[in-house]
């Protein structure tokens, strides 16, 4: 993947993740999956998805300008 990956896609992904946090579809689902209640497992997976999103944001949407300014000041 190129480092010029469009930032807006990641911002939309962050918003979508925020929407997906409201999992009405598992609200009253009592099933156990992988030993955990599915409503809980979903939110543990959500934490991992949030971590993945942050990895993408850091790699492809990092405010590089701040580091350029930092280097310029150090010189």
């Amino acid at each position, binding site marked *: 993947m190129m480092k010029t990956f469009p930032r807006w896609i990641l911002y939309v992904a*962050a918003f979508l*993740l*925020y929407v997906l*946090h*409201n*999992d*009405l579809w598992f*609200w*009253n*689902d*009592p099933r*156990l999956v992988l*030993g955990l*209640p599915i*409503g*809980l497992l979903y*939110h*543990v997976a*959500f*934490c*991992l998805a*949030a*971590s993945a*999103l*942050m*990895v993408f*944001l*850091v790699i492809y949407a*990092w*405010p590089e*300008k*701040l*580091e350029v*300014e*930092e280097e310029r*000041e150090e010189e």
Partner: protein
Amino acid sequence: MITTGVIFVYLVLVLLIGAFSHKLFRGTGEDYFVATRTIGPFILLMSLFGTNMTSFALLGASGEAYHQGIGVFSLMASAGALVIPCVFFFVGPRVWSLGKRHGYLTQVQLFRERWGSDGFGLVLFVVLIALIIPYLLIGIMAGGITLNEITNGQIPEWAGGLTVCLVVLAYVTYGGLRGTAWANTFQTLVFMILGGVTFYVVVDRLGGFSAALARVVNQHPELLIRGDSIQPLKLLTYTFVLLSVGMFPHMFMHWLSARRAATFRYPLMFYPVCIAVVWLPSVLLGILGSVDFPGLKGPQANYILVKMIGLHAPEILAGLLAAGVLAAVMSSLDSQVLSIGSMFTQDIVRHYGFHDRMSEKQQVLVGRLFVVGILVVTYLLFLISNRSIFRLGIWSFSGFSALFPIVVAALFWKRSTKYGAFASVFSVVVLWIYFFLQAGRAEDYTIGGTGVMPVAVILAVSTAAMILFSLLSKAPDQAVIEKFFPSGGGRP
């Protein structure tokens, strides 16, 4: 006796870390308050996470899960896994960059210069201090009550609270931010590891996780779904409470201590995982506790973790858990206290009374004395307060969250003005007081019982006030724009 011994050893270790960090102290105000901006990625992650995780994550989460079941995790943990790192991503490095470039040590300095208003700096200082005092109080209270419960009353509440205050006072005044960050790192590792160990030991005694959960399925199946325990609108609007991290003075202080902008990268990536690691065992133990200890009412369930350990684990684990809870309490309290000391020294004493007339050593001394004063006052409040003060926590967070438009406007909106900022803060104060009075003694207040948290309304009004009054007032001077948006078109 074993429990008390473990607690004592733990406190000595924390003090030794604070003392050791003092060896690197450079004797300057910048070193005392932001460690001369030398903190690396790992310590930054542990500091940010440890400061944000209070005793609530260990005890409160399990207590809430005892009553409400798995929904607690979605309400408080997974929401934080998304919102908090996003706030750090958009705000943290930009605040750090401005702090490094202009030498800021506090958030008030940044906002005062951003909008060129001493008056705004003063108003914000007062509001921030007023909002953080309940937060400090909760920490001391949690320490006192927990030590009392875990030692079966051997350590009275007043002595527990006093111990927490004295230990924090010692390493904060001696080690400054470096000591605080190192102690935070140690303490964060302690409560993360002990949470997992506690979970493993208890579940093992219950015959394994599947067997333990099967008992809940049979006796309290309602705890394994959200059902009516949490309203969907509450899940949606509770996320706004988490924006508070963008305006906490102690968060600003830790951001400003980073070595470089890039120091933020790893903490951002791993923060959500750390949340899951701490909250999952706490929530599950609370749910499992509903079988062994049925019928606990209200705050009685806050000690379900302690009760589970007492029933299923050796005494030494109770001592270790006490150490873990103290770790969670002190890793928040220390940063809050230090940030208040920093704000008082820089934003009041130095800015108004002795600007350019105080030596670096005098700055550090004033900061230390103010830290002592704040802890003494908070401890006295702890002695006379009712336990219902715990409910103030959510109000404290809501107030900070509603101030979030200020930091967003300062960093991203060139057209924002001091009038917009004043209007925003004013609206927060008025609405916060209004909703606080409306809520009365209700522990679970939402607007009209709909599930909508008051913070959603306060935040919306605060944002509208910032936009409206900025647009109605004269645009800021070009010199200010150039200072905060140096390239002319971008963000700081």
